[in-house]
């Protein structure tokens, strides 16, 4: 017994100080082996493949969307550097109609092509802006000016007949 105590005391003297402060009992600790980690990665890989397939299938199920001819507003109701929101091509697909200083009109889907937030018209900068990740779009063409979006906004084709603006095609599918 005394011999054991002596050996333990000797072992404590030989170990560095941090070992007693941060002691790890490897028999009690459950650690992940390289083999297990590789298997876990493979499982994640299968899950990602399933996710990608689900996304593609869901997009395919949406099908093609009809683009009706919708009266948006009378021309006189939107002043230069003004805007009006509407829904096109169907309910729930928000869009924005802009009137420029020269009197011409543009309309775009409000859905940001980055991650789907709604863009708004920033009057002081005369740009369309996505508040989520600070994406900026040109008010005439819908092209990306700055920020993370890789594509421009979906353009909605307009027609003006007898003083009324009609949305005729384009927009969010």
């Amino acid at each position: 017994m005394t011999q054991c105590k002596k050996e333990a005391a000797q072992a404590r003297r030989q170990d560095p100080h941090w070992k007693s402060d941060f002691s790890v009992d490897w028999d009690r600790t459950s650690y992940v082996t390289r083999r297990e980690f590789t298997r876990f990665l493979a499982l994640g890989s299968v899950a990602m493949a399933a996710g990608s397939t689900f996304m593609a299938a869901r997009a395919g199920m949406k099908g093609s969307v009809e683009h009706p001819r919708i009266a948006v507003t009378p021309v006189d109701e939107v002043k230069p550097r003004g805007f009006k929101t509407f829904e096109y091509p169907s309910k729930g697909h928000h869009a924005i109609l802009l009137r420029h200083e020269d009197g011409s009109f543009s309309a775009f889907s409000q859905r940001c092509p980055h991650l789907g937030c709604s863009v708004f018209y920033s009057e002081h900068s005369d740009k369309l802006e996505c508040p989520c990740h600070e994406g900026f779009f040109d008010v005439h063409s819908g092209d990306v000016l700055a920020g993370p979006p890789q594509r421009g906004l979906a353009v909605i084709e307009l027609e003006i007949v007898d003083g009324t603006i009609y949305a005729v095609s384009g927009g969010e599918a």
Partner: protein
Amino acid sequence: MRPANQTRLWVIDGVLMFVIVLWTVQLFLIITGLDAYLGGEHSILWPAAISSIVIAALCVRLVAYIRD
């Protein structure tokens, strides 16, 4: 360590390296796919999904080498 064990460890490390690289590519594919899906750009979704399935099959095949 015995030479046989050493070889086995090398194989596991090699497989792990390959799987990590493939996994990273797949992560890139799913992020790009999600971006395209939310942006209404549906044309690249099936190519991305098929590539992802091929990579997943490859990963599973590699992991099968180190089953035991």
